[in-house]
């Protein structure tokens, strides 16, 4: 009633009822209209309809009770007919068949009138008065006794027939016949009194536990009615409604028990849509209006089931999401096309699927309890048992709507750039959800924060794995294109623009319609400040230098500020370090020195732990779950006794055709006294996460950051410092920098003065000076006295690409190109 539309409708109806210009219904006009309709039906060869219409209207007009009068043909009668005639819509095109009245056979009156009327009178007196014969006196009792026995016989036969009929019903319900051996043998002669009474009890017992087929309308109110006054509220309410409104028609016609409602609710929450009590229209579940329970009115039943129906709808939405993702992944695998579903989505799907599976297991347990009927089960108890799960469903559904469904309508041919946006959005939504849940964790009874954290950890695993591969192994493996950075394949590793152009942002916001790369390329020459991070080898310190931006627009692709605005929120503090580490790893690989920075802490046959494994391990340690064990869980070493080993080795080597003494010696040398067991790494990873259920930890996100960031930063320090060290020691980086400073930034003014003096004189005298060899000579003369070591590295040429139309004097030397090898 608070809805604005409802108020508008009420005011509209009110104004129409009060201020209209219609005349009162005229009985003559209505009769004429009905006659006209009958004629129309006859013209359309629908004579039966005309007959039915005439009959029904006559019947209706003869009905009494309307308008409080005991006569027919009142104003109300004509008003209703007028209303129906006005609302009629193409009656000739609609099929109509009159409802056949069910003629119920009258119940045979089996009341014993004779006994009632005679009222136990002693009929012997009457017979005694009419006859003096003693024999009559003696015979009469026998006659009456016979009559009594006949009555008893008839009653017994009737009872037997009734029991036989009931037993037939039970047998039919079971679907078995006499020949199955399930039922005791009985005679088919209905008049026979062979039937045993104890089998009837069994049938009755079976009939009691058999579920009534309420979905076929076979439930009866009499079977469901309870003895408590409050258990028949629906019936009392209907009675009250019918009393105040004689035209009240109850909509619901099929009675169900609360247990049946509970069972169907459990099925509905499991994701089953084909139900009787609940109807699914493709969007949401609704209560079947034909169903009612005895102890609740229709409105209260609807309101109590509404939260569960909403949650069931959310479960269906999540299930369909999981199915869609799995089918998309499978179809892309089978067709061999590029992966269009981000791995982040797949990871999220996995965690949602696992959660739904756990939820269904819980529902299954509840269903078993319901079937056992060992404890009282009601809707209230069901809500209480499922409360923690329902809250989690709400949260997961909210994440799905905000993080996935909101961008699902984006249609873009280039799915790789969109995947970055999608993955980042999903991770940001999850991060925000964990943050908000963490804030309310003190009053959070259902440990939602820990649950969401688990989902976030599982969902962020692909992105962390991409970073891990890049900074540990130098490989940027991103099959779905969901990482924030992508490799520019046009730029090779040894290209001089590698550092600026090799890795570019991957983010493409659909609302902007352009990638950030496109935006930066459209703004050449803008003076933006870049933040670049370099590392010093001696003290392993990072220094931040602000370098004024050049006019080259391509340099802006490397803006760390750009990265700071992209990607998942919780990765932004380390994104810059990760990018620099990745670039350094590729540079080291190109220089052939990557082996020096690979993880050397593990044994040769061990796989080094990934960033994700280290992160989870530290998280578990800080949460206090495991002791500090730095061994990767993929490898467990157990000593084996010599006798056991000999048995295994001997058995293998003694196989005919395979005995090799040299092999035996080599085997003993390599693996002397240990036996190796490689355990499933995946099992270790999944076992780690379910233990995160501690609800007492404050600030979960900060804890996660403290476990993840140090690993990235330490890797950054190791790799970048190693690269700088190599560049300094083997590639004379400092010499190059000093040379740049001297010749390009003009720090040694004397060299520039000496070199340019000759040129300016030539220009002033309007002499020819565009000779490469002449410039080379001038350069050597200027550099040799001060920096003889740079002589072999410097060359000067004259470029012909410069625009000759430029008339300014200052631009005349733009054609000179100085190169430093």
């Amino acid at each position, binding site marked *: 009633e608070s809805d604005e539309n409802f108020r508008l409708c009420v005011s509209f109806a009110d104004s129409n009822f009060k201020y209209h210009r219609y005349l009162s*219904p005229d009985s003559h006009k209505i009769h004429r209209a009905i006659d006209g309709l009958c004629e129309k039906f006859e013209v359309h060869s629908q004579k039966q309809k005309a007959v039915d219409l005439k009959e029904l209207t006559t*019947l209706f007009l003869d009905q009494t009770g309307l308008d409080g009068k005991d006569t027919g043909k009142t104003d109300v009668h004509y008003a209703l007919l007028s209303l129906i005639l006005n609302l009629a819509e193409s009656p000739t095109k609609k099929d109509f068949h009159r409802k056949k009245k069910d003629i119920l056979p009258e119940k045979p009156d089996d009341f014993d009138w004779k006994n009632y009327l005679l009222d136990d009178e002693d009929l012997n007196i009457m017979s005694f008065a009419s006859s003096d014969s003693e024999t009559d006196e003696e015979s009469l009792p026998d006659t009456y006794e016979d009559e009594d026995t006949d009555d008893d016989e008839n009653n017994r036969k009737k009872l037997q027939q009734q029991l036989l009929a009931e037993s037939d019903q039970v047998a039919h319900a079971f679907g078995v016949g006499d020949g199955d051996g399930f039922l005791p043998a009985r005679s088919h002669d209905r008049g026979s009194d062979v039937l045993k009474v104890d089998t009837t009890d069994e049938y009755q017992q079976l009939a009691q536990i058999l579920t009534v087929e309420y979905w076929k309308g076979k439930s009866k109110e009499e079977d469901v009615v309870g003895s408590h006054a409050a258990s028949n509220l629906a019936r009392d309410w209907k009675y009250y409604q019918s009393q105040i409104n004689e035209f009240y028609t109850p909509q619901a016609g099929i009675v169900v028990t609360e247990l049946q409602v509970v069972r169907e609710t459990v099925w509905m929450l499991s994701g089953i849509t084909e139900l009787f009590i609940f109807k699914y229209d493709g969007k949401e579940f609704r209560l079947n209006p034909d169903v009612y329970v005895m102890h609740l009115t229709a409105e209260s039943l609807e309101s109590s089931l509404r939260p569960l129906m909403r949650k069931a709808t959310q479960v269906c939405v999540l299930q369909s999401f999981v199915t869609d993702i799995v089918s998309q992944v499978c179809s892309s695998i089978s067709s061999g096309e590029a992966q269009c579903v981000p791995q982040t989505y797949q990871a999220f799907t996995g965690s949602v699927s696992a959660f739904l599976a756990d939820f269904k297991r819980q529902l299954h347990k509840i269903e078993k309890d319901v079937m056992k009927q060992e404890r009282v089960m009601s809707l209230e108890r069901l809500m209480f048992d499922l409360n923690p799960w329902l809250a989690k469903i709400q949260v997961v559904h909210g994440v799905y709507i905000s993080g996935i469904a909101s961008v699902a309508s984006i249609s873009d041919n280039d799915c790789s750039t969109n995947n970055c946006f999608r993955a980042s959005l999903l991770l940001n939504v999850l991060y925000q959800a964990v943050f908000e849940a963490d804030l309310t964790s003190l009053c959070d009874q259902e440990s939602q924060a820990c649950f969401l954290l688990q989902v976030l950890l599982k969902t962020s695993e692909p992105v962390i794995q991409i970073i891990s591969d890049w900074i540990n192994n130098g490989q940027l493996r991103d099959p779905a294109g969901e990482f924030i950075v992508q490799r520019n394949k046009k730029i090779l590793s040894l290209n001089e623009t590698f550092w600026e152009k090799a890795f570019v942002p991957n983010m493409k916001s659909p609302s902007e319609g352009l990638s950030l790369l496109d935006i930066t390329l459209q703004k050449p020459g803008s003076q933006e400040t870049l933040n670049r991070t370099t590392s010093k080898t001696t003290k392993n310190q990072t220094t931040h230098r602000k370098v004024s931006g050049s006019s080259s627009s391509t340099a802006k692709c490397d803006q760390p500020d750009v990265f700071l605005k992209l990607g998942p929120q919780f990765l932004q503090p380390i994104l810059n370090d990760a990018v620099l580490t990745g670039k350094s790893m590729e540079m080291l690989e190109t220089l052939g020195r990557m082996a020096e920075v690979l993880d050397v802490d593990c044994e040769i046959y061990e796989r080094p732990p990934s960033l994700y494994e280290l992160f989870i391990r530290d998280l578990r340690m800080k949460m206090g779950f495991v002791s500090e064990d730095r061994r990767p869980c993929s490898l467990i070493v157990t000593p084996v006794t010599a006798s056991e080993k000999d048995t295994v080795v001997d058995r293998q080597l003694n196989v005919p055709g395979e005995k090799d003494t040299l092999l035996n010696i080599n085997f003993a040398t390599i693996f002397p006294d240990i036996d190796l067991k490689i355990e499933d790494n995946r099992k270790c990873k999944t076992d780690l996460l379910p233990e995160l259920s501690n609800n007492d930890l404050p600030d979960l996100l900060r804890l996660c950051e403290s476990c993840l960031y140090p690993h990235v930063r330490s890797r950054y320090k190791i790799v970048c410092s190693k690269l700088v060290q190599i560049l300094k020691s083997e590639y004379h980086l400092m010499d190059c920098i000093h040379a740049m400073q001297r010749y390009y930034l003009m720090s040694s003014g004397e060299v520039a003065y000496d070199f340019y003096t000759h040129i300016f004189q030539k220009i002033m005298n309007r002499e020819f000076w565009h000779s490469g060899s002449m410039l080379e000579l001038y350069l050597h003369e200027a550099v040799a006295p001060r920096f003889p070591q740079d002589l072999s590295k410097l060359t000067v040429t004259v470029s012909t690409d410069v625009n000759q139309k430029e008339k300014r004097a200052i631009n005349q030397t733009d054609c000179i190109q100085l190169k430093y090898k």
Partner: protein
Amino acid sequence: MAANPNQKSAAASQTIDILMEISRLLNTGLDEETMAICLRLCESGVNPEALAEVIRELRRETANIK
């Protein structure tokens, strides 16, 4: 003789049934609950043509919203 409540109820039920039959025959699209409400409104004195207009208008607006 005054009709007892049971007879009244039966008569009312029969009236509604007949009205619903006529309504089905003429394809008005009214269900039992709506018919009962319309009956009550007509008994209260609402003009049937105005009521029909309101019903048509509400149906149109509902269809537009959907």
